[in-house]
């Protein structure tokens, strides 16, 4: 009964009407507060876009009204903020971005200009080295009378005293004329360092089809015993090559007698190096004969200069009679151009020597997980953990090939600057450094250890596709400089200190 009188609600209806009809006056700064709040929460757009399409239906009057309003709409705070970001992009940060791009371009340029350490150039360099060492003699040879249209220079080099008993050569079209071949005896020159046998073989090759047959009767070490009792015949064979050096004989028959007349002919190969007309003849596991042809200055005379060198590589199989010799060579440090050698698979491998081992590096594979932390809206640091796999093919001077595999773990620290930010992608530049450590390495079957840390610097341009708000995929074209870690191991990074690569990855942002 208490609430009986609720029927009379007219005054309440009137009350509602009056209150509803008269909206409260918003305080003057209400919208500016609201605007600030909205921009904080990112609800507002960038504010720079002015709608025209929505108004297009409306009268000109409305548009002019609107343009008046627009002036009001740009709230000072937002306006300032907007100008500020523009200013900063145009200011310092722009230079950072430009600098990073410049580094990137410079890096690529340097990279393209870097000499390419290929197998071929190394071999040529090597022969050049020999030529330099032998330069006085070579010069002498170069002044050979012009009577001879072609001459051949035979250089046999070795650190160990060599004893070549006889070399026969012949010039004929066929093998039947062997009997008329001249015999050339080269005197032994003994020296602790290098023994050179430089003797021009004066030949006339009238026809390009002519063959030259050089017969090397005996090539032996004189192991310090002049009595000749311990002389070991290392090589006994012949090398045949034609003037057309490009078509150098591929399947040269080389007869080798190693004490017990062990035939090694199946092992013999000739590598043709077209460019410098040099080729190496692999006589044995132990010796490589380099044949090098140089065009003399008087090219109209079709004069060419042949250099033949036998370089004794201290690679010795521990089988058969050679073991003694090999031991002597290995134990005599003066034999080696460089004292660094390593015994792998029971073979002495020279690691850093004039006859350098050639590395064929594959491009390193990098992948990893990256995390990033925003410092300011424009800057973020990223780190992570990267795994790099470096694989190289090592060709030792004895032509044996092993695969070197190195596994690196790198932890980078990179400062990035975003210069284009959109909701679904970001463009940024960054620079930083990294510390890498070889965690596992292998050379053939031997384990390689490298305790040195690999430091590096890098600069990159990055593009990140944001899949989720805190997760994205990125691609970074990158220029990296790897510092020499002063270790014995040669890697891709060591030979290509400045390298260019693409990095793909995932990035977590928190």
């Amino acid at each position, binding site marked *: 009964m*208490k*609430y009986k*009188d*609720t029927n*009379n609600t*007219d*005054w*309440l209806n*009137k*009350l*509602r009407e*009056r*209150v*509803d*009809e*008269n*909206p*409260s*006056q*918003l*305080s003057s700064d*209400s*919208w500016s*507060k*609201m*605007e600030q*709040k*909205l921009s904080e*929460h990112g*609800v*507002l*757009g960038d*504010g720079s*876009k*002015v*709608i025209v399409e*929505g*108004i297009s239906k*409306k*009268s000109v009057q*409305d548009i002019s*009204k*609107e343009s008046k*309003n*627009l002036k009001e*709409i740009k709230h000072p705070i937002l306006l300032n903020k907007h100008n500020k970001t523009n200013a900063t992009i145009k200011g310092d940060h722009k230079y950072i971005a430009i600098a990073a791009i410049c580094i990137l371009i410079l890096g690529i340029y340097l990279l393209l200009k870097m000499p390419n350490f290929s197998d071929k150039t190394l071999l040529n360099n090597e022969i050049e080295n020999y030529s330099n060492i032998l330069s006085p003699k070579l010069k002498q040879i170069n002044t050979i009378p012009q009577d001879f249209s072609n001459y051949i220079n035979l250089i046999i080099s070795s650190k160990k005293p060599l004893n070549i008993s006889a070399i026969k050569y012949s010039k004929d079209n066929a093998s039947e004329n062997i009997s008329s071949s001249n015999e050339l005896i080269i005197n032994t020159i003994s020296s602790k360092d290098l023994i050179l046998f430089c003797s021009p073989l004066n030949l006339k090759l009238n026809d390009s089809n002519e063959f030259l047959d050089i017969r090397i009767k005996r090539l032996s070490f004189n192991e310090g015993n002049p009595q000749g009792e311990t002389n070991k015949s290392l090589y006994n064979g012949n090398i045949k090559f034609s003037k057309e050096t490009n078509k150098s004989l591929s399947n040269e028959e080389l007869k080798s007698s190693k004490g017990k007349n062990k035939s090694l002919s199946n092992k013999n190969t000739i590598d043709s190096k077209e460019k410098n007309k040099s080729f190496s003849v692999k006589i044995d596991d132990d010796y490589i004969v380099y044949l090098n042809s140089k065009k003399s200055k008087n090219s109209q005379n079709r004069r060419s200069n042949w250099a033949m060198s036998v370089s004794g590589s201290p690679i010795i199989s521990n089988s058969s009679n050679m073991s003694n010799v090999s031991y002597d060579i290995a134990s005599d440090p003066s034999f080696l151009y460089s004292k660094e050698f390593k015994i792998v698979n029971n073979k002495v491998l020279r690691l850093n020597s004039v006859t350098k081992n050639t590395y064929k590096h594959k491009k390193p594979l990098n992948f990893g997980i990256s995390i990033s932390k925003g410092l300011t809206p424009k800057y973020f640091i990223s780190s992570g953990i990267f795994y790099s796999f470096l694989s190289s093919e090592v060709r030792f001077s004895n032509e044996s090939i092993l695969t070197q595999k190195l596994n690196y773990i790198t932890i980078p620290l990179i400062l990035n600057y975003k210069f284009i930010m959109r909701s679904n992608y970001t463009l940024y530049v960054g620079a930083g450094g990294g510390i890498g450590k070889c965690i596992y390495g292998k050379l053939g079957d031997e384990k390689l250890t490298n305790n040195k840390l690999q430091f590096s610097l890098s600069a990159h341009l990055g593009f990140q596709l944001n899949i989720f708000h805190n997760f994205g995929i990125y691609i970074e074209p990158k220029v990296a400089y790897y510092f020499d870690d002063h270790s014995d191991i040669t890697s891709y990074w060591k030979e290509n200190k400045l390298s260019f690569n693409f990095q793909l990855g995932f990035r977590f942002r928190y």
Partner: protein
Amino acid sequence: MSINLDDKELIKLCLSKEKYAIKELYMRYGGYLLTVCIRYMGNRQEAEDLLQDSFLKILNSLDKFTWKGGGSLKAWLTKCVCNECLQQIRKKKLVITNKDINEYIDIVYEPNVEDIIQIPYSTLLQYIAELPDGYRNIFNMFVFEKMTHREISKKLNIKEKTSSSQFYRARQLLAEKIKKYMNRQF
């Protein structure tokens, strides 16, 4: 001040986050929504804060709004703000006590419609705002949102009887205030 855009166009522009349109929306309905907030919250400061929070939420859920002809935007906005107010009240634990008002309610004064017209709307709003928290909410819901006591009781998780008794009490208090005003006038 207001731009000649209808609600439908305005919402479209708001959805594409045009600042200009958002301002227009705020200016067009902000005052009204502020009234709603004042009615619930009881003081202007809190009401303004709440309005801004609500507006932010509204903008974020603007895509849920479906156009149902003229006035539907205002109704939807009001509903959104009301819900926000009630949520805020719940958060502030301005819980309506479940106790019945057992005291005898004497209907001292029943205002006339003419009286209401004479009183400035701001004063009316002030009177509503001055009502005790619990009474005020039920009064708002019953009178302004035109909810039944059953709906109110469900919404506020109170007894239906509590709702009606509290409303009755609020109405009494308001009537007294109006009477006072009228007496002062004459």
